[in-house]
């Protein structure tokens, strides 16, 4: 029987891996991941309006031009705008107003005027509508000039003005020595969690689909009768679960590998280590950040539990998918029946995202102990420091126990379901089968 089980596992795995589609899909996945990792480089490569400078002519009647010019660049950088500006001071913008229509470059005229009640005001004149980002950048720069003018007119000394405008110094002290002091921890934790969750989410989808399709194929062709007359339903069920879980394991490792290659390609294609939005481009930098933030220590501590939790959860999904597939008589029926299962994963996915936002949420923590959700939530809460190692272990034990229970009773349904070709009184038959040993 063991040999037949091994054969069925191998056969099922070969059917998934030794196909030209598996190779094609993996090449496409690698190319797409490299593309996603370098998407900003690609966008830049092809260029566009963002490459062209906007010409600003500024008529300054309050003496704040230098401050405006300096702030404009700073604000643009802060707003993560890739738009470039060329600024020029002019005496009278009215001379330029007539020629706006004929300007090849996008041109904006800015008039900074004194205002009795509000220190200063500005007029922005253009032929075309000014984009929201550019208008926001100009507005912020003007506001800074206004604040500076207001402070300078208040009679404060230069030192006082400097002290007033410079940012306040905030120092942090954590009295709990066990807790990592790294200020990057939260950010790194959420990044690491999402890096784990997102592929898992897709792999589960793949797992469920594969088991459903394979069992339905054998059922609808009636080859199931020949197979089950030679191997026990238990061996058959196990072979599907093991083969599909192995497949997603292999695909998961390949995805991680492709992710690494994609990150390496980014280091090659981009010269800077950090791009403007703070995304880390170098694999080494990521590893360093993971290490210094303390997430690596957590990962090492929780690794045995995490492996067991992921494994039991994948098996659980495979078992549930197998049972549902055995009950259905066509792939269309299975696809309908699996929808609630997909929504459960979606709930887990969204709760995992929300865990970063809602620190210490009781509801999310309770959900983290529920099988089918725990593999998405528990690692995130653990990395965020919202779940202890003991709690992670408990969550893993609950998942393993529940997986065993579902297998035990699911097998009873499976035995009846795989040889059932009618949807008549289906649920009655399945509930009745739970009593059979």
């Amino acid at each position, binding site marked *: *029987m063991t040999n*037949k089980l091994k*054969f*069925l596992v191998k*056969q099922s795995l070969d059917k998934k891996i030794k196909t030209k589609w598996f190779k094609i899909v993996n090449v496409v996945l690698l190319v797409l991941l490299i593309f996603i990792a370098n998407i900003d480089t690609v966008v830049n490569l092809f260029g566009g309006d963002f490459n062209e400078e906007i010409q600003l002519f500024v008529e300054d009647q309050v003496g704040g031009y230098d401050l405006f010019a300096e702030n404009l660049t700073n604000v643009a950088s802060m707003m993560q705008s890739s738009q470039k500006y060329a600024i020029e001071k002019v005496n009278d913008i009215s001379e330029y107003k007539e020629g706006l229509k004929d300007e090849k470059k996008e041109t904006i005229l800015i008039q900074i005027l004194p205002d009795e009640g509000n220190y200063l005001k500005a007029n922005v004149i253009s032929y075309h509508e000014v984009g929201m980002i550019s208008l926001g950048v100009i507005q912020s720069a003007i506001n800074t000039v206004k604040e500076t003018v207001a402070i300078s007119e208040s009679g404060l000394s230069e030192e006082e003005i400097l002290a007033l405008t410079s940012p306040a110094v905030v120092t942090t002290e954590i009295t709990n020595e066990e807790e990592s002091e790294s200020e990057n921890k939260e950010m790194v934790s959420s990044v690491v969690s999402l890096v784990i969750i997102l592929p898992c989410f897709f792999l589960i989808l793949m797992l469920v689909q594969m088991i459903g399709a394979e069992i339905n*194929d*054998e059922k609808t*062709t*009636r*080859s*199931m*009768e*020949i*197979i*089950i*007359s*030679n*191997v*026990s339903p238990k061996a058959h069920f196990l072979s599907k679960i093991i083969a599909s879980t192995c497949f997603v394991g292999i695909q998961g490792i390949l995805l991680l590998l492709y992710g690494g290659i994609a990150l390496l390609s980014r280091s090659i294609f981009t010269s800077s280590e950090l791009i403007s939005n703070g995304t880390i481009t170098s694999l080494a930098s990521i590893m360093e950040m993971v290490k210094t933030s303390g997430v690596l220590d957590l990962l090492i501590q929780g690794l045995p539990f995490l492996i067991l939790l992921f494994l039991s959860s994948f098996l659980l999904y495979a078992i549930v998918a197998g049972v549902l597939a055995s009950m259905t008589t066509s792939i269309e029926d299975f696809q309908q029946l699996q929808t609630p299962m997909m929504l459960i994963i979606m709930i887990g996915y969204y709760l995992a995202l929300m865990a970063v936002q809602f620190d210490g949420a009781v509801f999310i923590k309770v959900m983290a102990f529920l099988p089918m959700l725990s593999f998405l939530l528990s690692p995130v809460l653990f990395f965020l420091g919202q779940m202890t190692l003991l709690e992670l272990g408990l969550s893993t034990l609950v998942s393993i126990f529940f997986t065993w229970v579902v297998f035990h009773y699911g097998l009873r349904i499976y035995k009846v379901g795989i*040889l059932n070709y009618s949807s008549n*009184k289906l649920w009655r*038959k399945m509930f*009745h089968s739970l009593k059979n040993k």
Partner: protein
Amino acid sequence: MLSVSHVTKYYDTVKAVDDLSFEVQDGEIFGLLGVNGAGKTTTFRMIIGLLEPTKGKILLNGKPIDYQVTDTIGFLTEERSLLTKLTVLEQAIYYGTLKGMKKEKIEERLDYWLDRFGMSEYKNRKIKELSKGNQQKIQFITAILHEPKLLILDEPFTGLDPINVELFMEVIREFKEKGSSIIFSSHRMEHVELFCEKLVILVKGECVLEGSLKEIKKDYRKKNIHIIGDVSIDKLKEVPGVLDVQNLANEIVVKIKSDKEIDDVFEVVKKGKNVTEFKVEDATLNEIFLSKVGEAYDK
């Protein structure tokens, strides 16, 4: 030897098979007949261990059906039970390995049977690319590849032309000669008549007729008289005990209640002209089947 002893099977509250008993000896071809829903498939499923009887016992060579025993059973299902995405070779390896065969042996036997059925060029073709008849041949080959001791054939001639039906029959007879027990089910009674030595007719899960084909025909009192010549149909119909007279293209068939009516019919025939044939035959299995099934439904 296969022994089915007082087997009953319930699906929930529905009785699918009711106290069925029969034996199939080694080297014997046995017919399991019945209309759709009579319980044939349920019986087959119990014999190959897919279903457990609610009551009764099924033994193959004295052993209850388990996964060691099913390795010696070949089963050809009524519907196609092939994984159509596989090639012929992959399919044979799949089912053969599940029967405990080695890959080399499977390939060797597959080559033999493909050659025998004139299908060698299809070895590496996907099953879905084959015609219905060729798929049926592959299904048959996968059922006999491991040289089963018990061969169950559920409607084996579906989709086959007469030449291939003959080829199938030849192979089935070979298995019989080698000592395999064969259970055969078909709605085509002429096929059953050609093959089966013993049979059971099921109606609503219940056995309404069983025994050897010879005995069944002998015991069935109604006969058919085949006449070639110019004989009055009306006069034949007037003979007491004549059930029906069919005026066919080349002959007249007179159906009589029993042997007793033969002389009376002969008297009428003697008065006819150009009579070249007067032949008394047992009723066909089809007639027996229709009669028995009809009686069971009437009850």
